[in-house]
């Protein structure tokens, strides 16, 4: 008997075949009923997106427009459904934002369009869609990703907001300062809550860390995670700043030092997570300048000139409000005289910008979804049994 040559390992093409009648089950098992925790723990977090794209590839390969149309609509409706069903669940929203963005990137990377081929390997170029142009579906997916992103931001803001004013303004962690208060020694607390069960700056940092690690675990592209972090920092800065505008008791040199300290904690957090370049710290500049204004000397003409020059992020109404609200913490310090306020105003006459007092905490930076190709080789991907997709055939 001729020596049997060892069977050549089957060369997979990076597609997944399914029968039309299994489409509903595919959408249900890989989208609507999928538990993010299970996927994240033992497989690539954006594997659902790759699996769905490998199914798209096969329908395209068959040149079957009805099958492909039905699949794309099923994917879009499925993601919409799971996002609506879990619109308050931070984990699900983060998971599906990450996977929607990954699928969108796959549709671009393998569209065959020149602009998306630059970083593809020769093999990836070979895996481009052959028959159909899905640019219209990409637009719908892109709009869907924007909706999911804003819903995710809303949930994170809701979770973070209770900690902002107590953590950034009210709680005093600075030892030297707190002893100035007549209420005696105050224990330095590092726990999430101190003895009075109030939030501290650590509460804010821990919440940010929880968001950031979850998004990273869900395989979220760094360009999107950075935008989310920047938006949250804007909320922290604007919310804290507005409190200073509203509360005289927050307008003291001591509070200025406390805010400055908390801003450095936030800056440190950005460094630890390599997020310094995301623009988050810039969103705190109005708050940082208000804190500086609370600490700086406010009596001579030179002081007035410097204030007008340094407070570039504050408008005259805000500067005057802080100066008029300034409350010395003890009898040695003088209040800010009205003549000093007039001196400052004289240096601000050419100012022509907006003059609103409060910052808009609902303001949203425009989200962008830059093209992020993946180096993943589709032909190497295998469907784990834990996803209950036995009816898919690897091609």
């Amino acid at each position, binding site marked *: 008997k001729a020596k049997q040559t060892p069977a050549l390992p089957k060369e997979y093409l990076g597609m997944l075949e399914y029968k039309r009648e299994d489409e509903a089950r595919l959408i249900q098992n890989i989208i609507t009923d999928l538990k993010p925790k299970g996927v994240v723990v033992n497989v690539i977090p954006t594997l659902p997106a790759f699996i769905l794209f490998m199914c798209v590839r096969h329908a395209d390969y068959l040149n079957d*427009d009805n099958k*492909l149309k039905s699949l794309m609509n099923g994917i879009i409706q499925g993601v919409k*459904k799971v996002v609506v069903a879990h619109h308050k669940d931070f984990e699900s929203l983060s998971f599906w934002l990450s996977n929607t963005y990954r699928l969108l990137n796959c549709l671009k990377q393998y569209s*065959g369009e020149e602009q998306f081929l630059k970083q593809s390997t020769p093999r990836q170029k070979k895996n481009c*869609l052959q028959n159909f142009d899905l640019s*219209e579906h990409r637009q*719908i997916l892109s709009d869907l990703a924007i909706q999911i992103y804003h819903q995710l931001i809303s949930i994170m803001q809701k979770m973070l907001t209770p900690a902002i004013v107590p953590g950034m303004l009210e709680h005093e962690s600075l030892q030297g300062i707190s002893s100035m208060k007549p209420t005696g020694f105050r224990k330095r607390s590092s726990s999430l809550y101190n003895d009075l069960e109030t939030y501290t700056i650590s509460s804010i940092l821990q919440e940010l860390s929880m968001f950031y690690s979850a998004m990273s675990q869900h395989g979220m592209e760094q360009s999107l995670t950075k935008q989310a972090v920047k938006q949250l920092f804007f909320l922290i800065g604007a919310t804290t700043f507005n409190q200073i505008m509203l509360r005289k008791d927050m307008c003291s040199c001591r509070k200025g030092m406390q805010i400055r300290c908390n801003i450095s904690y936030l800056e440190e957090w950005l460094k630890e997570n390599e997020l310094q370049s995301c623009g988050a710290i810039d969103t705190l500049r109005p708050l940082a300048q208000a804190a500086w204004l609370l600490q700086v000397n406010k009596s001579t003409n030179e002081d007035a000139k410097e204030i007008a020059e340094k407070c570039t992020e504050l408008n005259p109404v805000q500067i005057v409000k802080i100066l008029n609200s300034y409350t010395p913490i003890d009898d040695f310090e003088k209040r800010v005289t009205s003549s000093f306020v007039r001196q400052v105003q004289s240096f601000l006459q050419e100012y022509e910008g907006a003059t609103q007092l409060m910052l808009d905490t609902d303001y949203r930076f425009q989200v962008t979804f830059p093209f992020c190709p993946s180096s993943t080789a589709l032909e190497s991907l295998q469907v784990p049994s834990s996803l209950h997709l036995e009816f898919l055939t690897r091609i």
Partner: protein
Amino acid sequence: PRPSLRPRVLLKAPTLAEMEEMSISEEEDSP
């Protein structure tokens, strides 16, 4: 590799109205 360099056919995506209808019909189907 692509058999011929003929352009890909644009696959028409559903309009907003059609998508609305799909969601409604799905809600009616689901138990």
